[in-house]
């Protein structure tokens, strides 16, 4: 099965396929990296009935044809697939064991793993077993002039960015934040090989017992995952005015966040706190009302793609971060925005 071509592996993290397309995003980036080192892209899938995985996928999406073929359609040249009833549910210990075994045998040049909750635990364990380096939660990947993987990772909540390489040991490993790279559109004409890897006989028993596992309802989707966040600070003025942000968030289908002064003033519960001691958010759009922009707060929200900030003080740090800086009273703009949204949404119906 070995090949002379350098291989870039992508871990097939299909469990949250519809919410989280990081595996497809990684396949796409891996393709570009493979060009630079004249290598190939492989996906690795462990599971059970992966051909029929998610019945709803088959019915809702006629092009979906099983995980392995899906990965080929999105850029993989080869898929290693272990399909067995023991792999019906995700298991950290088993997956690490299988991946280590396969990597020792096939000797990939790089392994890329999506920084999902599972991936962020899986990657460091695997790196330890393989005695190699690993960079966590990368926001960029590239190849340097020596053909090494440049792992670009943030620290201090995005206040610093480090470029890291793994000069000697192999494989070079990185876990990568979802949403950074663009997936290649599904192309069912792409071809690739699927290699069925049998389940090893000496697979150890799981020491961690899964007692219960429930899919979280979408409604409970939290602030951290919200694609739109309305965030309020002291500049909202009062609890009553702050409450208007909930109405705005409702209209926009987003979540409400808050700064420390707003939480301390008891305008909103601690669960809404965005900051060093609270939550990190990375929405598509952030509306920031009356937020001065202390670093504890900005570090937790400057990954927002597009920021609209409203503040009476044009010099507030939050205004400097914003794409649109509105110099005005936060609660008045909030009210005007609610009115305008209501008007537009009513006209649509």
């Amino acid at each position, binding site marked *: 099965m070995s090949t002379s071509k350098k291989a870039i592996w992508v871990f097939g993290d299909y469990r949250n396929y519809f919410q989280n397309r990081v595996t497809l995003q990684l396949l796409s980036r891996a393709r570009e990296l493979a060009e630079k080192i004249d290598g190939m892209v492989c996906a690795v899938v462990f599971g059970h009935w992966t051909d029929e995985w998610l019945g709803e996928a088959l019915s809702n999406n006629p092009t979906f044809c099983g995980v392995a073929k899906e990965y080929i359609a999105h850029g993989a040249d080869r898929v290693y697939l272990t399909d067995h009833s023991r792999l019906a549910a995700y298991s950290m210990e088993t997956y690490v064991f299988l991946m280590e075994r396969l990597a020792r045998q096939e000797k990939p040049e790089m392994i890329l793993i999506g920084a999902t909750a599972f991936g962020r635990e899986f990657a460091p364990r695997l790196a330890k077993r393989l005695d190699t380096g690993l960079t966590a939660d990368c926001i960029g990947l590239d190849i340097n002039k020596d053909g090494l993987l440049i792992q670009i990772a943030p620290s201090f909540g995005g206040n610093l960015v480090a470029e890291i390489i793994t000069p000697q040991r192999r494989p070079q490993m990185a876990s990568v934040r979802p949403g950074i790279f663009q997936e290649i559109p599904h192309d069912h004409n792409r071809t690739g090989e699927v290699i069925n890897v049998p389940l090893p006989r000496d697979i150890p028993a799981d020491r961690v017992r899964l007692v219960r596992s429930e899919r979280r309802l979408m409604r409970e989707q939290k602030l951290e995952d919200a694609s739109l966040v309305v965030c309020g600070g002291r500049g909202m003025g009062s609890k009553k005015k702050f409450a208007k942000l909930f109405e705005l968030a409702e209209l926009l289908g987003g979540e409400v966040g808050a700064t420390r002064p707003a939480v301390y003033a008891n305008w909103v519960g601690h669960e809404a706190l965005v900051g060093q001691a609270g939550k990190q958010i990375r929405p598509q759009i952030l509306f920031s009302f009356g937020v001065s922009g202390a670093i504890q707060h900005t570090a937790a929200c400057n990954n927002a793609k597009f920021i609209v900030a409203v503040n009476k*003080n044009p*010099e507030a740090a939050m205004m400097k971060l914003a794409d649109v800086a509105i110099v005005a009273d936060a609660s008045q703009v909030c009210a005007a925005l609610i009115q305008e949204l209501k008007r537009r949404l009513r006209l649509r119906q």
Partner: protein
Amino acid sequence: MDFNPCMKHKVIRKAVRMFAEAELAPVAREIDRDARFPWEVVTKMQPLNFFGLQAPKAYGGAELDSISYAIAIEEISRVSAAIGLCLTVHNSVGIFPIVHFGTEEQKQRFLPAMVRGERIGAFCLTEANAGSDAGAVETTAVRDGNGYVINGTKIFVTNGGVCGTALIFAITDPQSPQKSAAVFIVERVTPGFSVGEIEDLCGMRANPVSSLFLENCRVPERNLLGRPGDGIRIGLTALDTGRLGIAAQALGIAQSAFEDAVRYSKERQQFKKPISSFQTIQNFLADMATEIDAARLLLYRACAVKDAGRPFGAEAAKAKLYCSETATRVTNRAVHIHGGYGYSREYDVERYFRDAKVTEIYEGTSEIQRMVIARDLLSQRT
């Protein structure tokens, strides 16, 4: 000579700051505005030894050294001077006299509940006609059987509205007030003890400063601290310690105002530049920083002298004088740097400005401090 804070002092500062910023900061502005004593926060302070900062471990105290004590008061006052005031009065002039002049029986009877913060302490010297002049006290304690009957009115009692245990300064012989002055430990539940209206003050508004009335208030002899005639000595010793706390409180206020001024001067733009780029503002800030530094060193030295067991009255007076006058100057400058906003309740500096002034007045006015200092230096150079 080592000017670096030791590791313990750093840990104490961080621990207190973490508590103050998380629990006290959210209410600091509101309790000042509404003149409300924040029991909900105080309840959280009780198990953390804030009410027994220097009290002996035997009675449940933390038995901290004086620099740690000053740091704790400074950090609480940095966020809410009124609560810093509650603590310093409770710990220094409330608990300290019982620790130093009380009998073992008195310590066991009064200290544990005070150290737990269940009974907040107050020290009652000031009257309508007596303040700086402690000898002019008119409250009387008349011997009656195996106890004393106390009559009089105390004013401007810090913690008055919430105190559980008060030290009452009274004269036992009106013929010779100086020689008969005594201090009584009086519990709030004692018949004849009542709390007057809470004062509507300019600053320190979250502290329920009030009058206390003693009307035929009968206390047993075992509540007498020391002997009749010890009053002045106990009072002066307590005040020396109290001055360290007030100095620390003033320092905390100054520090807070300074931090706000630095932050604001970097944010506020005029003529398309942050005002911190102007030399005038820089001079203000440089002076503020220098004075705060000097004040802090004076205070910590006074604390070190006290802990070394040497007389520290003059050092405490110098620290209290300089810290409080620094607080007044620094908060004044901080308001000025904030311009019109500084005069608005939207910002905290106006609160610091109001809170600072009284540190020059209570626990001995600046003039009394100068008198103490002068008396000390003149006595050395005979």
